[in-house]
């Protein structure tokens, strides 16, 4: 057998080996199949959760726009604890404004006195008395 013949024969043997290898495709082990399917399902679920704010379960109606905006507001101010603090601070400010401590001027009282006393009591009286005076009718 010449070298060329041997080389051809080796190539033929190699082709036979390739054919034998192709005839036996790799089998997926059950554990690997289960792991790949679990990966696929997790990835799919993650995407569903990402699409719906708050992780709504698939099949439920999506939340309405006002509800989502309100949730975004709560989230922006720091969640429910921060919202509670904001409410307490607002009510305290309102109460201090209506009933201030003794060392602070009372804005309600000063507003009332300004309205009835300074405005109606002096200027308006003067104007009315002036209008009612005899000189006007003459």
């Amino acid at each position: 057998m010449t070298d060329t013949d041997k080389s051809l024969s080796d190539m033929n043997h190699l082709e036979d080996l390739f054919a034998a290898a192709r005839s036996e495709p790799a089998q997926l082990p059950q554990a690997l199949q289960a792991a790949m399917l679990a990966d696929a399902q997790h990835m799919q679920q993650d995407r569903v959760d990402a699409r719906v704010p708050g992780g709504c379960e698939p099949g439920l109606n999506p939340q309405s726009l006002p509800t989502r905006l309100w949730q975004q507001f709560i989230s922006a101010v720091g969640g429910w604890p921060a919202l509670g603090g904001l409410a307490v601070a607002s009510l305290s400010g309102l109460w201090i404004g209506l009933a201030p401590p003794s060392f602070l001027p009372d804005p309600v009282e000063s507003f009332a006195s300004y309205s009835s006393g300074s405005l109606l009591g002096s200027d308006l009286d003067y104007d009315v008395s002036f209008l009612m005076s005899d000189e006007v009718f003459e």
Partner: protein
Amino acid sequence: MTGASAEGTPSRPSNGPSNGSNDDALLVLYANGDPSAAAELMQRLAPRALGVAIRVLGNRAEAEDVTQEAMMRLWRMAPDWQPGKAKVSTWLYRVVMNLCIDVKRRKRGRDVDLDAIPEPPDPGSSAADRMQDLARQDALQQALMQLPERQRQAVVLRHLEELTNPEISGIMEISVEAVESLTARGKRALAKCLANRREELGYSDD
């Protein structure tokens, strides 16, 4: 069947030989939340990914890890897939090859795992024939592992996966001429390597 329904949602491909457009449609179904599309995609693509990884790595456990990671990347990229632009299988082969290169870089110098190659279950052959088949497949795997990395990849894709040179070119991101060169040199090197074991593998010189 790969067309889209009236609502623009791809319909489920019929059973049949795996082809690029069926894989496309299944991938879009999966991305849209179809719970059974993943299993079909896995049955179509994962055995080929595993087979290539086993041949390139010579180690079944590592090949299984590579296959799982490659499929994970497939699930992850599904929403961004643009049907018709490329074949899903080509994309997956490329990911498998790159992961195999990463694995080989991490474990330079380790031996070939001969258990990686499954024994051909041929009930018609005798025990002696089965032993010889197994010895030949082991010899092929050992010879493959002697090849440089890129030659081995090209030979596996060309002669074991029977992909075309342009497909291999797309997977390996090299020219078709480079693919031809790699496969030719790889095949010659394999034949030379196996020639030294001609008698041992039961090949006569007549």
